[in-house]
């Protein structure tokens, strides 16, 4: 077997992934905490106030990274769901279902902070604008995936049914991304573009990029922690889990 495929098989084995994720978790949490703290300092203290929005623009530093993560988590969930459906890899199903609550949390933060930002900027908490509505639909899709996964008794069947729903919902991702171009929206158009250059001052940009890194790292930490807990439940009858339970009993 070629080495890449061999690694893939080893990585997909629950006891191996459990140990691997456990080794990485403390580092991921630490890195997310440090980059997050520096990013927030940069955004709240060092960045100058916006010439139009004043200090209210600082909500951007929670709103935008969380909005990116809502989309990223959905894509991660759909890709893992697809792998789980096609190749029946247990770890992929577990990772897909682990990503759903984290993505829902980020999407909820995006909607709530966006609403708080909208009040002083647009004069309204909510409007049925294309960007806002499609983002709300994504939150409901996350709820659907979580609910369907919880409603079916058999864990693996539940993950497959919920993964299918997640795949159908992928149609919403380009709608969210392009909504500010396709329709006249109250929501502002894209400002940050890594390839074409950003229309934002460098002193405002670097904390945002650092926070994007922090939220990505946090996402993987949270998904790893959730996947570890789910694997213990799924493999409760297996020897490696029994061993783990008795080993940690005296700790």
């Amino acid at each position, binding site marked *: 077997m070629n080495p890449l495929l061999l690694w893939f098989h080893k990585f997909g084995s629950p006891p191996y992934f459990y140990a691997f994720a456990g080794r990485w978790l403390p580092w991921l*949490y630490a890195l997310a905490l440090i980059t997050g703290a520096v990013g*927030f300092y940069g955004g709240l*203290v060092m960045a100058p*106030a916006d010439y139009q929005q*004043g*200090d*209210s623009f*600082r*909500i951007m530093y*929670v*709103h935008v990274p*969380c909005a990116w993560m809502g989309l990223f988590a959905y894509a991660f969930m759909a890709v893992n769901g697809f792998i789980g459906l096609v190749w029946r890899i247990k770890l992929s199903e577990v990772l897909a279902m682990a990503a759903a*609550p*984290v993505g829902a*949390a980020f999407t*909820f*933060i995006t909607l*709530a*902070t966006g609403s*708080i*930002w909208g*009040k*002083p900027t647009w004069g309204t908490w909510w409007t049925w604008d294309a960007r806002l509505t499609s983002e709300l639909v994504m939150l409901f899709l996350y709820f659907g995936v979580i609910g369907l996964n919880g409603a079916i008794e058999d864990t693996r069947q539940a993950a497959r049914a919920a993964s299918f729903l997640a795949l159908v919902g992928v149609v919403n991702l380009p709608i969210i991304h392009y909504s500010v171009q396709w329709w006249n929206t109250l929501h502002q158009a894209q400002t940050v573009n890594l390839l074409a250059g950003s229309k934002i001052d460098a002193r405002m940009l670097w904390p945002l990029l650092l926070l994007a890194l922090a939220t990505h790292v*946090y996402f993987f930490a*949270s998904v790893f*922690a*959730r996947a*570890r*807990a789910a694997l*213990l*439940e799924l493999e*409760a009858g297996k020897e490696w*889990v*029994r061993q*783990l*339970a*008795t080993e*940690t*009993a005296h700790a």
Partner: protein
Amino acid sequence: MPDWFAMHGYAGYVWSAYAIFAIVIAADAIGPILRKRRTLSALRGRLTRESSRAARAAAAPESTP
């Protein structure tokens, strides 16, 4: 410091947004830790019951049909 905290009148909006972020992320981080602890303690309980049942069966084999 109080000047900075006031955010030129936007304090209520800015700090409530950051508070929502902090609360939701904290809840998200605690969830899997509690779940793992619950699973392991349930599993340990089951293992203890199984081993004590096995010990009882070994001590009094005639009592089990």
